[in-house]
């Protein structure tokens, strides 16, 4: 028995002897927490498609940075951040002032921008490898500098959500109430869009643009099934997301599967369990 325990601890510790695994773990946990907290609002406000579109729309921005910097990875965070904020506010304006329905407008822009990004990256010879890193993430290549950026910007996001907790809750539950209480509704809506944009930039290296929406909605949806309070939904979502990050990375290490996919599959597994548990309990 004791032998088994030692083996198990060995299995847990062995990957951590590599610094890139340590950094990957920390990044996955931080990104998980940030995505889950912001994702709570995405789930409650029905913005999953917006989040997915936003993640895809930043690809040309990353591609431009990638071409200009000649393949350097560290500067890409800033390109992602700038494009994401621009795209988030841009999608907001277009969907409001368009004669076409909002989801159609978002769909057109999202696919167009995504295609532009792929076209730009395809001009480089090693494009297949690089493209797959942008699409599906490459958490094991997170540099110490990148980790600091994730920590700082993730911290800013969490502080903002904390500071405007009652405003965001009121606005999400009852926009008309927010308006009659004369809260700055437009400002708060745009602030939330910017928060989602920064979250997308922060998470880019961990899960990539194509799987981003899973980190934004899956852990939060899991928590939604299990709790009846907004604050506990955020805490529980953050717990599921960071746990998915850790388990996903071990799976990735031992089964040699792509890290982003392993993290998302773990999060999906938790959702299935919660969904099944809820069904058996409810029925």
């Amino acid at each position: 028995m004791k032998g088994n325990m030692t083996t198990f601890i060995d299995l847990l510790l062995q990957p951590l002897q590599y610094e890139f695994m340590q950094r990957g773990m920390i990044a996955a946990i931080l990104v998980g927490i940030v995505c889950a907290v912001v994702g709570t609002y995405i789930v409650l406000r029905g913005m999953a498609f917006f989040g997915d579109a936003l993640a895809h729309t930043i690809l040309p921005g990353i591609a431009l940075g990638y071409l200009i910097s000649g393949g350097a990875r560290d500067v890409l965070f800033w390109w992602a951040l700038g494009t994401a904020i621009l795209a988030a506010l841009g999608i907001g304006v277009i969907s409001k002032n368009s004669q076409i329905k909002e989801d159609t407008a978002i769909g057109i822009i999202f696919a167009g921008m995504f295609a532009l990004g792929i076209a730009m990256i395809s001009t480089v010879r090693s494009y297949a490898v690089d493209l797959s890193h942008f699409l599906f993430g490459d958490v094991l290549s997170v540099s110490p500098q990148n980790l600091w950026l994730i920590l700082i910007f993730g911290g800013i996001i969490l502080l903002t959500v904390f500071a405007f907790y009652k405003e965001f809750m009121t606005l999400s539950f009852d926009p008309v109430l927010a308006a009659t209480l004369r809260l700055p509704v437009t400002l708060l809506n745009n602030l939330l869009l910017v928060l989602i944009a920064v979250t997308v930039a922060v998470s880019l290296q961990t899960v990539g643009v194509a799987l981003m929406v899973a980190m934004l909605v899956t852990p939060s949806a899991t928590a939604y099934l299990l709790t009846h309070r907004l604050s506990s939904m955020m805490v529980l979502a953050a717990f599921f997301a960071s746990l998915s990050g850790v388990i996903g990375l071990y799976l990735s290490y031992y089964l040699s599967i792509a890290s982003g996919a392993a993290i998302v599959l773990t999060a999906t597994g938790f959702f299935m369990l919660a969904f099944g548990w809820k069904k058996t309990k409810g029925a």
Partner: protein
Amino acid sequence: MYPHSHHQEDQPILDVRHLNVRYNGYTALENITFHLHAGERVAVVGPNGAGKSTLLKVVAGVLQPSSGDVTIFGSRPGRHVCIAYIPQRSQVDWGFPVSVADVVMMGRSAKLGPLNWPRKRDWEFVQHALETVQISDLASRQISQLSGGQQQRMFIARALAQEAELMLMDEPLTGLDTPSQEGLLDLLDTLREQNVTVMVATHDLEQAASHFDRIMLLNHRMVAFGEPHIALQTGNLLKAYGGRLRTTEDGNIVAVDDCCDEGEYDHVH
């Protein structure tokens, strides 16, 4: 602090003049003029699509009129936090992860101001509001576990926590069973003692006639506004409801709503 307007107490609580609301070439409200006194209780009655909800939203300052003036205690509604708008129950996301006390506390968001968290005094406000509407035992319930009548009471408690002086309610009685409706109407009596002015959109002519001081008969234009026996005269009803009105054999007038949720008939004697 978020911006608040101060009240000029000598002004009527609500003064609406020559109000027009048009969107996309469609006229929702045309030339509406009226005023309300503090503590009054008014029912806004009319067929579906008559512009009742639009009127309430313009008064709440949530919707901008195309022309005309709306003033609350002498100034525009856009900065007043004394107006509570209680939505139709069908427009609320009842799966939202909040307790009854959370929702009532939302009413205090404006008074709290940015970056402040609820203090002891605010929780006492919430507790007191819940006691007034008699659901303090449900404070920690998730909102989906409430009955229709309790849901309405929760929103009235939220309006009380907001310290609202003008309460706008959109079809609060729709879909409630008779005891819940009676309970709610009794509760509105309690509010009158607190000098809260109440404006209710309803399509139940009988309840409007028996429980409200004045009735506004609306069909895009204001057909009549006055005490129930005057406002609900046959000629006025015919003007407001047109072909959807018929006289039964025993002499009662029945307004037949064309697209109502319950497809019910509204009786008036």
